[in-house]
């Protein structure tokens, strides 16, 4: 299973790199779709059907909206040669990558092995969720009962995002 996930992750990286360098914006959008649908297969292989359902539906809707937007506006992307400022930004990005990688390796070395102590909470959730919440689907039990605040926050974020979209996209004023 790990080799399959590695192959799919490699394909996702190739798709993401192609999406950055594509001349045509429509093919860039479709290459973004490779990343999303690859993630769906990864979730299915890791036995997370809830996440896979949400991911496949959201990916499809987002792809439709982005294709509609690209077809409405221009399909060409203009490339420019980087000037002095651009080279400086690239240098800063490379330095930051190296620093973050160093601290990442440091942090990974200090962590406990997976499942030894960091997942204490998960045991309580897995063993007691059906009695405490009455929900057979563990994910819903966690999302709406144990972690209700998180879900309320997510829903509020969505409402706020829609308000922002309406405010920004309204081109003609209300009479």
């Amino acid at each position, binding site marked *: 299973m790990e080799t399959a996930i590695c192959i799919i992750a490699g394909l996702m990286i190739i798709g993401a790199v192609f999406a950055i360098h594509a001349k045509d914006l429509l093919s860039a959008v479709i290459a973004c779709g490779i990343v999303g649908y690859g993630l769906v297969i990864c979730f299915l292989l890791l036995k997370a059907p809830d996440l896979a359902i*949400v991911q496949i539906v959201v990916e499809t809707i987002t792809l439709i909206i982005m294709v509609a937007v690209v077809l409405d506006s221009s399909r060409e992307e203009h490339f420019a040669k980087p000037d002095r400022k651009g080279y400086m930004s690239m240098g800063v990005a490379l330095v930051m990558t190296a620093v973050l990688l160093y601290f990442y390796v440091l942090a990974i070395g200090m962590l406990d092995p997976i499942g030894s102590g960091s997942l204490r909470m998960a045991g309580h959730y897995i063993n007691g969720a059906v009695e405490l919440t009455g*929900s057979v689907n563990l994910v819903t039990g966690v999302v709406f009962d144990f972690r209700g*605040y998180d879900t309320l926050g997510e829903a*509020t974020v969505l409402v706020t*995002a829609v308000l922002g979209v309406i405010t920004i996209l309204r081109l003609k004023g209300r009479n």
Partner: protein
Amino acid sequence: MKGMTVIVKKTTQLIAGLVFLYGIYVTIHGHLTPGGGFAGGVIIAGSFILLILAFGSDFLRLTKEEAGSTLYENLAILVVVFLAISGLLTTGRIFFLNWIPKGTPGEIVSAGMLPLYNIFVGIEVASSILTIFLALVIFKEELAE
């Protein structure tokens, strides 16, 4: 936005209702099977988006505004907040308390408040996604007129 050909329209007529029903199924079985309010809501929004893409924006009389979907979105999130506050009014005095009797696990009417949260979050997500799509379609046409 203009409609598409006859083949697409006919296929959409056959499929859109099934997609809508499947979204409702995923939403109200959220505490039994994989899925839930978020996934079901996006599927319901997908059925409307399918209709709008196939038949054009004249079909659903989308000449006015997205006012209806914004109304449902805000009302649904308000109901979710009120359901969460209702836990404060019972003896437990806990925000997000699951105070309705749980019932037998595995039946469709069980798990107390969780199906209610699922349904209203589903309505909220469906109308949010639909509002974003309508905003992209309608505001451009408003400008063209």
